[in-house]
């Protein structure tokens, strides 16, 4: 029996641990291949064909094709690998962060300028539930 994970209570957060790393191994390694210019070019030319070279699950491939940034994380992706896909798309960390929070880029940037998301009300899943 696996040890219980104390961090499962964090709202809106996937902690990338050894279990997630195993689940997302091929997804992440595929995204990592985008560090090479020639691979970025091949990916842009035919994304589906590029993804089909990797033994990933269909939902993982769909999450990449639809740029479901949160979905990729749920399926074992890690932010530093998905960031390489973002860079391939010409997007910054802040742009994908905005998308993951469901805010517009302008609203997210404004929240950061005002000091960011406060820890109050964002420490536990129970706090997000009561907020609705």
């Amino acid at each position, binding site marked *: 029996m696996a040890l219980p994970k*104390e*961090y499962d209570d*964090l*709202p*809106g*957060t*996937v*902690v*990338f*641990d*050894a279990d997630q*790393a195993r689940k*997302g*191994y091929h997804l*992440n*390694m595929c995204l*990592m291949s*985008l*560090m*090479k*210019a020639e691979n*970025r070019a091949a990916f842009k030319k035919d994304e589906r064909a590029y993804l089909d070279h990797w033994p990933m699950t269909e939902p993982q491939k769909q999450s990449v094709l639809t740029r479901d940034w*949160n979905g990729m*994380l749920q399926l074992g992706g*890690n*932010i*530093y*690998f998905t*960031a*390489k*896909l*973002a*860079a*391939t798309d010409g997007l*910054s*960390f*802040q742009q994908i*962060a*905005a998308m*993951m*929070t*469901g805010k517009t880029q302008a609203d*997210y940037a404004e*929240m*950061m*300028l005002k*000091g*960011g*998301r*406060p*820890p109050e009300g*964002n*420490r*536990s899943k129970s706090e997000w539930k009561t907020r609705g």
Partner: protein
Amino acid sequence: MARIVAGVATSHIPAIGAAWDNKKTAEPYWQPVFRGFERSKEWITKVKPDVCIVVYNDHMSAFSLEIVPTFAIGCAAEFPIADEGWGPRAVPPVKGHPELASHLVQSLVLDEFDITIVNKMEVDHGLTVPLTLMFGQPDAWPCPVIPLAVNVVVYPVPTGNRCYMLGKAIRKALASYDKDLRVVIFGTGGMSHQLQGPRAGLINKEFDTRFLDNLTKDPQANVRIPHLEYLRETGSEGIEMVMWLIMRGALDDEVKEVYRFYHVPASNTALGHIILENTQA
């Protein structure tokens, strides 16, 4: 003997590297960030270290999920700059100090820290952004750099206490080196930030301020912070602050804070920076 004269901690936010490389340092958004390091640049020019040990984390640029070393020391003569998806940063390659790096590995492993030896490695923004902030844009970095990569990406990551003890072991290792060298150790990453998921953008100024204060006032209070507290209070990427504790552990018990800078936001992150000097000459 080699000895540590000072410790520098700084965030290593990639957007800062991009702002520098794209000549945006005078833009209103970035200007305060770079102004915050002007005094630090003057300081390090005066300190003139012979070697810098830079504690940082690789962001899945050199390492991958194939092998995830907890602590890895770069023993190569040169470390090329990684292409993180935008093309490599146009900064000088990083020259190592293979002789001192091998000595560190030798001493640390016998001291029961099981260090991974790395003889070929590209370095990413985690290492190059702190160099840019402290040294600007020279044709070559002014001194050799020993990269010390820490896994803070795949849980379980090392505890704050383990990091602090590693710092102490580094200090001991330097003392047995046969050449006189003045070393500055960098702890990089942090402070509070979360890059991922619906909770992205979390910032905790109160936590960060206390962490900065306790580097001089009560380092043990920082050392005792458990992983869950970092995750809950400082966002999923705030855990990078354990790397600052390696830097802190390598210094004297008593240190003097000579400079501090804190700024929100730099992209998604609370930028924290501090310079600590050893008080015993």
